């Protein structure tokens, strides 16, 4: 599957995993049953209770598992239903971007977005922009090298405290 994915990615769109706060942008009619965005089938969304629910380690895990990019969608800043989730997540992503840059993973692979319940157009525009940036970067070799993937597959639990 790895080689297949690599060749496919060379030609096609980058794989992106998106975590979407269930109070933020409504995506029920934007995705198919498997969570793929209809307009961009290489982007898969996972609904979560609040953007602040995401442990930064999970974003790293997603990159390691083969995603070329990861984003988290929260409510507009100042309007988090849980008051501070999106601010906290923005800080965590900033920190993770700096940490990953030391391992030569470009910051563009991680992104924090903020869109309200009905802001579908703005959300899709941001996703399209991210796809474009990742396409310019090329496949996510930096984060998804074979050694790391093997390590992640072997002992995923060890990386939680990274």
């Amino acid at each position: 599957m790895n080689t297949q994915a690599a060749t496919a990615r060379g030609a096609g769109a980058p794989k992106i995993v998106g975590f979407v706060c269930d109070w933020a942008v409504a995506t029920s009619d934007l995705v198919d049953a498997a969570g793929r965005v209809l307009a961009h089938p290489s982007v898969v969304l996972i609904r979560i209770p609040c953007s602040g629910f995401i442990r930064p380690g999970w974003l790293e895990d997603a990159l390691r598992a083969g995603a070329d990019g990861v984003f988290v969608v929260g409510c507009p800043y100042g309007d988090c239903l849980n008051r501070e989730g999106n601010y906290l997540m923005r800080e965590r992503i900033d920190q993770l971007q700096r940490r990953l840059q030391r391992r030569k993973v470009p910051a563009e692979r991680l992104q924090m977005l903020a869109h309200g319940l009905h802001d579908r157009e703005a959300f899709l525009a941001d996703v399209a922009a991210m796809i474009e940036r990742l396409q310019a970067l090329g496949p996510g070799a930096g984060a998804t090298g074979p050694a790391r993937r093997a390590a992640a597959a072997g002992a995923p639990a060890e990386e939680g405290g990274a």
Partner: protein
Amino acid sequence: MYRKALTALQRITLRLDVAVNRIYPSDWNPLYYTGGLANLFLFILVLSGIFIFFYYVPSLTGAHASVAYLTELVPYGGLIRGIHRYAADAFIVAALLHLFRNWFTDRYLFSRDSPWISGMFLLIFGGFVGATGYILVWDDRALAVLGLFDDLLRAIPAVGDWLAGLLLGGRGVSEGTLPRILLLHVGPASFLYVLLWWHYVRLRHPKVWPPATWVLVSLGLVTLLAAVIPAVSGIPAQPGTRPETMPLDVFFLLPFWLAGLLPPGLVVALVAVTLGAGFVIPYLGREEPREMGVRHAGVAQVIDGNCTGCELCYYDCPYNAIVMVPSPHPGLSRAAASRKLLAVVIDSRCVECGICIGACPFEALELPGLLEADVTRRVQEAVAVAETVRA
């Protein structure tokens, strides 16, 4: 019906946000600071109120004259009186916007009922303080409001007459009336701060103050209004007479205006039903629990063996639902073996947002409805199903 209406109102509220966010950065959106603005106006009211208090004479013959002296002869007295009037109007507008906004955007769910109930009390006491303020001016409108207030109190079943005698100082207007009204103005106003403590007690970093720009704009706005449209008194009150009409004030005197049109008993019932409905709102959700999916993932649970007592979840929880207690026994993992503290989730404060899970680097917290294993599995599935070749 109720659910459909709420969904529509939520859509309108959020669309309004988007429109305002196009003008201001979202960190500055005044609609995100309605509570802070109400608190700011309350602060302006307290400062200007203390100033006015020094000049006010609560007697039947002296009240109107002392307000006239303050307005006309004290330097800036008229301006400060105007600021007191318009800040009160702005306070009630901001507080109502705060109420409707939090209602329409579901910010009353789970354990957020405590700020909602305290907020209802703040609204009741705030409205009461505003109404008694109009009586203190002691002009013809004050007398009309006092008469209607007396009617309304007496229309309350069983305790009405006793309550009217207690609050207004006996039957009819007497020298005891105005000191009592003054106390009913200042006392509940001070009590608002006790209620505010209740309103904030479960919030970590409550946004009690709007951004500096909005503080200056609000101050400027009430000052400008006070200068352009000065607050004035009507003709002095003549106790014993009953004015036929009174100038309508939509901010505080709506129930009194209604009491002039409808029988007082009906108005009391209307007010009681409205307020009662307000208290029930947090218990009538827009959705059934089973419809909420990941939004209702259960109260966060601490994994005792993994908790290192690092306090990160304690600092990040926006509702003060996590407390650190002295650890009764060492943890199981290596990092937790020498811990001094243990995190404990207070169930009655948790809103099931999962922010503590994101804060914990030691896998020591979980939402029962969405475990870390579930998220990891979903990420693996997501990477597997992502279609990398465009159709």
